[in-house]
């Protein structure tokens, strides 16, 4: 009979079981009566004949049992019974149920959440089919670093690449675009990108609303990179929300900016955060990149490789294009600064690298996420060990029950099925909780992602990660629930009943096994605690680091973009206007109530080359600007003057070469001697002379561990309007700097309306926020370490509580023989303390080996800091001893007389 037919018959028998039972009863009775009749005819008495018939035919009920087993789906009834019983058991033990379910939920949920975010952000950031065929193309740029950086492309290079269709099936480019709208307040400025018309086709992402560009909608760009005529626009989700209130009626709406009218045709989904990250942005279609300054490599380019074309082949083609451009445009591609950077060259890399190698916080995020994944891995291990321990303990306690069930007729399979049902039910609760933790955890982790980080895929639960962690955690619950049951089912029933009746179990071996599990838990917890302790120490040092100036009650004011030289007609006019504006702003701010000092500051983005007197090889130094006199930056920020003097008004002017250097530059350029009166020369020939040395001041917006650049200061006026970062104003306040912001805004509006809205930085806040990644990582490590610590304590408590219960008789005898309570307590504490000590020792060895992986996250803290290690070892040991206390106290309360009487 085939399987389907058998199943069909069993289903029918289950549905019509009443009828089948009646027929079976009648048949059984008929057989017995026939046999009894035969026995009567053979000469037996009536009673004897019937008994013999029953004996010969076999026991009726047991035959019925066998028949029922053969037909129907009996196991369904058993399953229902087991589920009911399992549910009751879990309800009767709410503490155990809650601990196991929560433990599983935490392990499953946290692991899946972290891995899901990692998958989107790091492992598979590019969507669509064949993401490996998408590449970025750029010019090799040395910038400020020794190793080459990946830069943009010039417009001529983009035009050449678009013709290389034998290598690239699609080439897209984008270039940043700035738009302005006049309002009653400051000029409303917002940034976006001019893009090739085929830009969106490359990403395989549908817009949330409307559509993207058609090829015929591209417009030409003028010299300033602005559209020459009215055109269409696609909005980012963030821009749609912030400027249009998320109005679904935005499609077809037209608005004016920079003298043009733009019609909104589409809105991209929230996860399309490319290339600007989560900032509000827009896209307009352009025929070609901006014609502007052809020397500048301001265009970003991406392409899709044709099928069969490798990255190496594409690079070979780019090398050829580079040679071609050098030949055709030597003035552009063979200029001095390209030669200084090692010569003109084109590079290509997989697009995925763009997401993981951009400088804007990606490195911190990567390290944080990898670190979290490692920590989560240890938590998951602790979870599995803890769940295993709890399940072992619980099943051990049920040896008596299992023996009774076997004694009243349960076979091994039935017992195992019952325990499997219980384990699966418990594991199911944990899994359901795990899903909830996953979704919550992902929301929290997404908030970690820096706004500037580009993204193309939505962050979703990763099915593979969920399945893997579910299998691991549930497997632990099922395995540790079943193994003792299988062991018990093989033991002698009478032996098991006898031992269970005496308060013993068959589990001397399991007791050692549980002890080993507890040691493992403690060791893993110590590892997590060590990591958390190191991060806490690191963050404390970060936050207490002297930035080189007084950050309290300090406000930076950044005026918006001002009209440049194209507006004023010449560089000199623009410069003079900017300098006058800043001086006026300085005077007005200084007059505001609550202001103690105002300085002016400016920095270049990169080091430039200068030659020291008596040397040939140029050295990279960072030029910076400061106000003079009352607007002196050093006095406003309280950067100490270590030698020489401050600037005076006579130092202003591009014919003057007096400079103030910082300590880093002094040590770098003139080690072991005073920098005062020393000279150095710019590439253009201008000579500078050192008149003052100030202390090093950390770059507020940089990473916490950025080294101070070798910097020299000139009065800012000679470069007031262009290049670098700033100028900006530095205000020392008497009270909370935030309280002055409205007055400052009003003052700026009164002085100059032709600027975009200013933005403000409370310096203390900025310094705090730049440690966000480390603080967040520290917080998570602390949480994970806390969880590990709690689970370890629970594990030790569980083992000891069970041990005390098992040794009640022994303790009763010892006390009857004269043992004092403190001796009994010491006996129990020693048992627990031994486990904890072994675990702590093993954990220290593990931590000494593993914490070096934290090195890149630590600030001025060694990964094996002895003070931290000692502290966490003591903490863990103390908590472990505390966990031993309750069972030890219970042991001292054993009444020897009632214990021995019950024997």
């Amino acid at each position, binding site marked *: 009979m085939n399987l389907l037919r058998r199943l069909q018959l069993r289903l029918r028998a289950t549905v019509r*079981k*009443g009828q089948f*039972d009646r027929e079976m009863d009648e048949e059984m009775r008929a057989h017995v009566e026939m046999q009894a009749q035969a026995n009567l005819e053979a000469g037996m008495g009536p009673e004897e004949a019937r008994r013999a018939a029953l*004996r010969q035919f076999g*026991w009726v*009920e*047991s035959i*019925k*049992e066998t028949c*029922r*087993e053969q037909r129907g789906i*009996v196991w369904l*009834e*058993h399953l229902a*019974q087991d589920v009911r*019983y399992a549910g*009751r*058991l879990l309800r*009767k033990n709410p503490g155990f149920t809650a601990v196991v379910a929560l433990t599983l939920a935490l392990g499953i949920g946290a692991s899946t959440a972290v891995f899901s975010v990692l998958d989107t952000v790091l492992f598979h950031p590019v969507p669509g089919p064949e993401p490996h065929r998408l590449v970025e193309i750029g010019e090799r740029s040395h910038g400020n670093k020794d190793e080459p950086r990946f830069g943009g492309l010039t417009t001529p290079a983009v035009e050449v690449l678009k013709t290389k269709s034998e290598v690239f099936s699609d080439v897209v480019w984008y270039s940043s675009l700035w738009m302005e709208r006049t309002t009653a307040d400051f000029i409303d400025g917002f940034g976006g990108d001019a893009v090739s018309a085929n830009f969106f086709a490359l990403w395989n992402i549908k817009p949330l609303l409307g559509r993207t560009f058609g090829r015929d909608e591209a417009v030409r760009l003028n010299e300033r990179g602005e559209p020459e005529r009215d055109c269409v626009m696609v909005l980012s989700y963030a821009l749609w929300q912030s400027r249009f209130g998320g109005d679904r009626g935005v499609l077809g709406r037209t608005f004016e900016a920079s003298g043009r009218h733009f019609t909104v045709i589409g809105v991209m989904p929230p996860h399309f955060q490319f290339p600007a990250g989560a900032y509000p942005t827009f896209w307009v279609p352009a025929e070609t990149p901006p014609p502007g300054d052809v020397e500048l490599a301001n265009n970003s380019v991406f392409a899709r490789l044709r099928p069969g074309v490798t990255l190496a082949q594409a690079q070979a083609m780019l090398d050829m294009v580079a040679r071609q451009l050098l030949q055709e445009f030597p003035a552009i591609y063979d200029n001095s600064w390209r030669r200084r950077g090692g010569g003109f060259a084109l590079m290509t890399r997989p697009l995925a690298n763009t997401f993981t190698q951009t400088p804007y916080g990606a490195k911190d995020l990567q390290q944080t996420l990898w670190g979290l994944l490692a920590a989560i891995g240890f938590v998951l291990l602790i979870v599995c060990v803890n769940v295993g321990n709890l399940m072992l303990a619980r099943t051990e306690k049920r040896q*008596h*029950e299992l*023996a*009774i*069930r076997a*004694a*009243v*007729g*349960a*076979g091994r399979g*039935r017992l195992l099925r019952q325990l499997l049902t219980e384990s699966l039910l418990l594991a199911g609760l944990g899994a359901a909780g795990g899903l909830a933790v996953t979704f919550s955890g992902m929301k929290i982790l997404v908030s970690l992602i820096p706004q500037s980080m580009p993204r193309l895929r939505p962050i979703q639960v990763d099915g593979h990660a969920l399945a893997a962690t579910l299998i691991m955690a549930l497997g632990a619950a099922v395995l540790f629930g079943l193994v003792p049951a299988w062991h018990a089912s093989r033991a*002698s*029933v*009478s*032996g098991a*009943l*006898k031992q269970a*009746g005496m308060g013993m179990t068959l589990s001397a071996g399991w007791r050692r096994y549980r002890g080993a599990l507890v040691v493992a838990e403690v060791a893993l917890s110590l590892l997590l605690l060590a990591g958390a302790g190191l991060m806490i120490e690191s963050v404390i040092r970060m936050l207490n680091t002297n930035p080189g100036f007084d950050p309290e009650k300090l406000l930076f004011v950044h005026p918006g973009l001002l009209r440049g030289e194209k507006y004023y007609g010449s560089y000199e006019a623009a410069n003079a206007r900017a300098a006058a504006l800043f001086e006026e702003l300085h005077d007005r701010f200084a007059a505001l109530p609550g202001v103690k000092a105002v300085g002016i500051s400016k920095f270049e983005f990169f080091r430039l080359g200068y030659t020291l007197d008596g040397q040939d090889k140029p050295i990279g130094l960072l030029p910076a600007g400061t106000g003079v006199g009352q607007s002196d930056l050093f006095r406003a920020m309280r950067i100490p003057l270590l030698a020489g003097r401050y600037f005076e008004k006579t130092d202003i002017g591009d014919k003057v070469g007096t400079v103030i250097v910082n300590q880093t530059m002094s040590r770098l350029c003139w080690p072991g001697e005073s920098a005062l009166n020393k000279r150095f020369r710019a590439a253009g020939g201008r000579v500078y002379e050192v008149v003052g040395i100030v202390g090093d001041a950390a770059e507020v917006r940089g990473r916490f561990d950025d080294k101070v650049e070798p910097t020299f200061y000139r009065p800012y006026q000679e470069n007031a309007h262009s290049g670098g970062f700033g100028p900006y104003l530095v205000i020392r306040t008497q009270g909370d700097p935030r309280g002055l912001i409205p007055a400052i805004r009003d003052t700026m509006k009164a002085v100059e309306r032709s600027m975009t809205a200013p933005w403000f930085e409370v310096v203390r806040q900025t310094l705090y926020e730049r440690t966000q990644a480390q603080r967040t990582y520290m917080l998570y490590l602390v949480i994970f370490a806390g969880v590990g610590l709690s689970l370890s304590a629970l594990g030790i408590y569980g083992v000891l509580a069970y041990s005390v219960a098992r040794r009640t008789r022994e303790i009763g005898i010892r006390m009857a023989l004269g043992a004092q309570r403190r001796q009994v307590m010491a006996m129990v504490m020693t048992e627990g303390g031994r486990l904890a000590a072994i675990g702590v020792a093993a954990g220290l060895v593990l931590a000494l080996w593993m914490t070096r992986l934290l090195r890149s996250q630590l600030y001025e803290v060694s990964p094996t800091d002895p003070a931290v290690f000692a502290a966490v070892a003591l903490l863990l040991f103390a908590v472990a001893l505390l966990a031993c206390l309750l069972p030890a106290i219970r042991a001292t309360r054993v009444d020897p007389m009632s214990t021995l009487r019950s024997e």
Partner: protein
Amino acid sequence: MIKLRNIEKCYKTKAGFTYVLRQITLDIAEGEFVTIMGPSGAGKSTLLGILGMYDHSWEGEFQFLDYPVHRLNAKERAVLNKRFVGFVFQQFHLLDDLTVAENLDIPLSYRNIPKSERQALVADALDRFSIVAKKDLYPSQLSGGQQQLVAVARALIASPKLILADEPTGNLHTDQGREIMELFKKLNREGTTIVQVTHNEAWAAYGQRIIRLKDGWMEKT
């Protein structure tokens, strides 16, 4: 019903072999009420465990009804046990997380008896032993005597041919013990074969025959 021939059981120790039962040969007829007595360590409970087919490490011949138990494997013996034997333990061994009714239901469930039939049998047992009012209580809510009563009911509910009782009154007061012994006597009159282990001569007198063990040997009478 039961034929034992030269049953022996021993444990291997560092000093050699320790015999718990030596050359036990006895017959028990159907419908008999037999008491096994002897000092502590005589092997009484061990013999009962062998008779109940819970214990498998012994030698000799054991015929139960027409089945050669000594030739059956552990699984086959478990089937025999399930079909024909009910066991009453000294420590009651009720399931603490099940009610009285559920404790009675469990052996029936393990015999794949349909729910409706099980319910009828349980109701019948509760009534027969006058514990209907206790059906929803848990063992911890019962006195020792009531627990043993439930244990006896559980042993009988699947209509076994043989009841084995290991010190069934060992944890009970005299009055409770007497109740249990009167119950056994009644069951025996109705045809159930009973083999009990006891230290108490008064309880032993309820049986028809006493088998005495000493140091694993059967004393000759």
